[in-house]
């Protein structure tokens, strides 16, 4: 065998855009292109200068093999896709604002009851971790289970409606107070963890 040294292969560190999770050079194909560019400018100004300066853009256009007409058509399509994406995000945000977090108190045995919290996952809250936190806080049992509608809910053994409201507000400020609702409900079956 020849005595060539083995090529040293090192792991490359790849930078991924914080907005679209693609390498920044592909951000122009993502619908969130403008946000990607802003993110890159804020966090990695050198990369931004490298990719977005005018020289790079004209170089890229010169390198490509698309005719002028196609380029213009593609640019128009991207604009449309971007505005559609923004409209979609706005709609989702609205839906989020409208959805409620419901805190219910239901009876389990004659003197024991459980507190049920519905609808936290819409706000991006990690249900399992939150259930554990509640249980630790009140020194009782807490878990996540599916209710008959198929939605996930946090069940805490004991009657803590008001305290839970305060806890949510303290730990998860992203849930606006107006969206939380306290109700009562009679639940005949035993809440199983």
């Amino acid at each position: 065998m020849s005595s060539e040294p083995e090529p040293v292969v090192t792991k490359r560190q790849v930078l991924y855009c914080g907005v679209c999770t693609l390498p920044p050079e592909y951000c122009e194909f993502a619908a969130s292109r403008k946000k990607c560019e802003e993110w890159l400018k804020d966090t990695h100004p050198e990369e931004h200068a490298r990719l977005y300066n005018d020289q790079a853009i004209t170089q890229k256009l010169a390198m490509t093999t698309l005719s002028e007409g196609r380029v213009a058509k593609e640019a128009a399509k991207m604009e449309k896709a971007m505005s559609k994406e923004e409209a979609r995000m706005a709609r989702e945000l609205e839906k989020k604002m409208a959805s409620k977090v419901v805190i219910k108190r239901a009876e389990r045995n004659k003197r024991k009851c459980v507190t049920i919290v519905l609808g936290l996952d819409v706000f991006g809250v990690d249900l399992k971790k939150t259930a554990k936190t509640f249980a630790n806080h009140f020194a009782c049992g807490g878990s996540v289970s599916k209710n008959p509608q198929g939605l996930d809910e946090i069940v805490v053994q004991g009657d803590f409606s008001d305290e839970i409201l305060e806890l949510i507000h303290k730990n998860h400020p992203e849930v606006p107070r107006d969206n939380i609702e306290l109700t009562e409900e009679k639940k005949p079956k035993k809440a199983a963890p």
Partner: protein
Amino acid sequence: MFKKFNLQGTMSGQNSVKTSTVRNIRLKLAKQFPGLEPCLDDILPRKANLIQIKCKDHITLYAVDSEILFFQRFEDPITPTLRLLHQYPEILPQVKVDRGAIKFVLSGANIMCPGLTSPGAHLPEENIPKDAIVAVMAEGKEHALAIGLTKMSTNDIKSINKGNGIDLIQYLNDPLWKTRID
């Protein structure tokens, strides 16, 4: 292949792999991907805690430290993930598509021969046989765009220049790319 993939919904089992099986996998990978050999010790060290995740449709994922490294369908050859390919670009042979094709590849379309033979695209000098796993690069871009399976050898692609050239297995921002293990 990962058009509809949701880890939460399809995961049926997760377990650590025995060291002997890890060794087996290393051998298979070294044989399959000659470009992978120098990096194999970095990616899969001898005492690696390799986790095997079984999903629906006979898909198996192999992960180390909550990062998915390889995947496999049925008993097909084990393929690296796109993220791994970005970190070690040399492990797969590379083909290049022209800029116009990037948009379609990013939505999962298979690559037709003209996209590989037009000016701006690039196929390697030596022949890559049919049914080989290749990295799909893009004109003007530094990082891989997708991982594909050749449906025709590159010589055929150059000469026939019609029809389906490369099937896409993985592309940027597909469901597997977005999957994270906790």
